Structures are given as structure tokens and as C-alpha cells.
């Protein structure tokens, strides 16, 4: 039961309390760029979840089994980027083969996940927090993806409604989006400190 509790807490922590977008300000580029429409945002969230889970597991394995044993932790940035780029390529090929419609609808955003800093950030955070079990790293990676999906979907929902709102001319477009993002972050600040 102990493990289950730890995993559950880790999941809730990464999704809500330590959400990468709201508290670490990572992945802001797609968060603001692809949150115009809800369906696109959800698709982006799903793709990121997939890639971040894969990348999180693989980087944990490389970091703990290869780099740590050889005392080459300095190499982790380069290795992690390599892993993420490779994983994205693999996902792209897989989607193109088996889910062509999904592949079409992602378009350019799929290869751009490579440069999503939320993914590299999560891999580095797992190392920084000293996560020693592969299972916990997996749960954290998956949770980070879910947290990103939640953040981008909330944002997209608000922005869809903002289209019909009576926004002052000087705040239309990017300014009101940034204000919304700030307020959302403030709201999620309420969870801070709930789980260490």
C-alpha cells in the first residue's frame, strides 16, 4: 500500500500542485500557441502526454543505468535531447502509419514537440528530485503529460469564450491571453504546499 500511496501522491502532485505549465512556466509556447481551439489543444495535449511518458521512462533508464554508473552526469542534457528527438521521430512514424487522420490534424505541431521545454524540463526534474524508482518516474512522466493537457484545455476553453467577450480594444489578442494565463496560474497557486 505504501508504494501505491507514494505513486498516487506523485501523480496528484505533478498534475495539480507542481503543474509544469502553471508553477514551473514550462511549455508556454504551445500553451499559448495551440490553445486557440479546444479540439486542437486536446490533440496537442495527447501527443505531448505520449512523448513525455516515453521520454521520461527512457531518460530515467539512461540516466540511472548508463550515465550514473559511468559518472558522466554532465552529459545528461545532450543525451536527454537526443532521446526526446528520437522519441518524437518514432511517434511521428507510428502515427503516420496507423493513425493517418490524427497525423494530418497535428501537422507541424508534432515535430515541434521536440522543442517543447516541458518535456526536457520534466526529465531534468525527475533527476533533480532524485526519483529512484522507475515506476515513480513513469507515473510522474505520465502525470506531467496529463497536467499539460489539462492546462492547455482549460486555456483553450477560456479563449474560445473570450472570442465572444467584450474585451477592450487595447487588450484584444495576445494581451488578454497573457492576463488569462496569469490569473489561471494564480488560481493554481492555491494548491501550492499541499503536497511537498
Amino acid at each position, binding site marked *: 500500500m505504501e508504494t501505491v500511496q507514494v505513486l498516487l501522491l506523485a501523480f496528484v502532485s505533478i498534475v495539480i500542485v507542481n503543474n509544469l505549465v502553471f508553477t514551473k512556466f514550462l511549455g508556454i509556447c504551445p500553451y499559448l500557441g495551440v490553445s486557440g481551439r479546444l479540439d486542437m489543444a486536446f490533440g496537442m495535449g495527447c501527443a505531448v502526454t505520449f512523448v513525455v511518458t516515453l521520454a521520461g521512462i527512457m531518460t530515467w533508464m539512461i540516466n540511472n543505468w548508463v550515465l550514473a554508473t559511468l559518472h558522466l552526469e554532465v*552529459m545528461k542534457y545532450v543525451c536527454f535531447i537526443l532521446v526526446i528527438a528520437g522519441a518524437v521521430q518514432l511517434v511521428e*512514424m507510428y502515427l503516420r502509419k496507423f493513425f493517418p487522420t490524427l497525423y494530418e490534424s497535428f501537422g507541424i505541431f508534432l515535430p515541434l514537440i521536440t522543442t517543447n521545454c516541458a518535456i526536457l524540463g520534466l526529465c531534468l526534474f525527475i533527476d533533480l528530485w532524485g526519483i529512484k524508482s522507475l515506476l515513480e518516474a513513469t507515473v510522474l512522466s505520465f502525470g506531467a503529460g496529463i497536467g499539460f493537457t489539462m492546462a492547455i484545455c482549460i486555456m483553450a476553453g477560456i479563449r474560445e469564450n473570450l472570442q465572444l467577450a467584450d474585451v477592450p480594444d487595447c487588450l484584444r489578442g495576445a494581451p488578454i491571453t497573457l492576463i488569462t494565463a496569469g490569473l489561471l496560474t494564480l488560481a493554481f497557486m492555491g494548491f501550492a504546499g499541499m503536497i511537498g
Partner: protein
Amino acid sequence: MPIFAQTTGMWQQAGLAALIMVGLGTGFALVLLIASIKLKVQVDAKIEQVYEVLPKIDCGACGFAGCSSYAKAVVSDPELLGRCAPGGSETANKIAAILSLSAGASSVPARAVVHCRSHTKDKEFYATYTGIPSCTAANAVANVQACKFGCLGFGDCVQACKFDALHVIDGLATVDYDKCTGCTACVKACPRNLIEMVPFTQEKMMVVACRSRESGKVTRSMCAVGCIGCGLCVKQTDLFSVDDNLARMAYDRYEPGPACETAMEKCPTGVIVYRGKNALPPRPAGEKPQAAKV
């Protein structure tokens, strides 16, 4: 010599690091190589060729999500040839050449025509609308303006247009024919169905810029420049017909002659206008039609 020992250690570390990178890189390259062979997608070379000749603007006029999906569809089903409105007959011919078909008769480019010429000063209002500034929303409100058929001027079509070819000028959506590609996005956007695709056999086309089917008296009370269905134009040429208090132009046999010009001059509200490139500005509202020349 401790300094040498240090350097040797450093070189060893660097060598190890390089080895790891090479190892990881090769590992990933192998995985991706296997994946690219196993997950290879057979793409018809013709699809790429067709995609190359398409305008690549993803306007959706063909009914597909974008140019790439249209390319795929047209290769498998040649019946879909000629759906590309922005490309026109030129693109259709090129696609036909790739698919070794003949495109048939060259088609006339269709362009958007707004069937209204009522600017804010010509319109009658019962109250001021302060709701959501969109035509779709405003159209749901009764009496948003007196005329139930005319342009609302909130610019849903302007937002739909990807080519910056539509602008609301003084409360009337106006097409910039230098930019219009005939993609039909605005036709779908207009909640009042004011925009119609007209085959432009000439640079400028004579159109009846009104959609009001109210009786002449009611139309006159609502708009200074509406069609009152008087039928003076029908007396000049059979290109015009009046149906439901509204004059219409038969575009399928459009051939403007002096009779049409006379009809235009005689029209009491000046609702028959030229639309297209270099079209002259229409007669101002309220000005009396000139007396017919003998």
C-alpha cells in the same frame, strides 16, 4: 607530473562521453531505421505531384481539409477534378495532365458578390444593437435593423476570408476583386446568404445588389437603395426577371448590351450596379435616374 595525470583523466572522460554519444546515437539511428522500414507508408508519387501544382493555401473551397487531402482525394477519384476554386481552370488542367486526363472546357472563374448595396446611411434602424458584434449573433435578434435581408456589417465574412479580400466599408461588406480567389468561405459565413458566387465572364458584372423580397413600399421604407420589384429593368431586357418583388439577373446567359445599360439607368433606386475589377462607384442613393436618351 600531476597536471599530466589530470589531463589524461580528462581525455579518458571525454573519450567515454564521446563513446556514449556515439553509442546512443547509433542505437537511436538503428531503431529509427528499422522503424522507418517497418512503418513505411506507400505514397503515390502522383499525390505529391498534384499537391505541388495546387495553390497550397488550404482554403477548403474544394470541401476537403486542405490541399494535401484534396490532392489525395483527386488522385483516387478523378471526378473531383476542378474543385479547386482559387486555382481555377489552370490548376485543373495541370492536375489533368498529371492524371493523364482531359479537363474539358475551361471554366469561368466564380467570384463573390455581396447582394446588398446599403451603407449605414441608407439603412433604417428601429433601435441600437449593442450585443455581440458578429453577424450570426445579430441575425438571431429581431429588428437588429429594419431590413431583414440586408448586410449587417459586423464582418463575419471578413473574418472568414483568408485573402483579405473583404472589408466592411460604412456598414456594407465590400469585395476587393483584386484579391478575391472565389474560395466560397464568405458564402458559408454569411448568415443572411447575401453572398453568392457569380461566374465572372467579364471583368465587371452587372448585378442586382439587393436580396429584399418585401413589397416595394416596405422595402422603400426600410432602405434607400433596395430593389422595389418595379420591373422597369424587365421591360428593357429579358436578362432580368422579377420574382417575389426582387429583380434577378440571369448569369447563365449574361451578355450586357445597351439594353442593360438603359435598365441600369432607369432603375429608380439604382440597385443595379457593376461589381468587379474597375467597377464604377454606384449612383448615390436618392439621386433621380437620368432621363432616357432619345
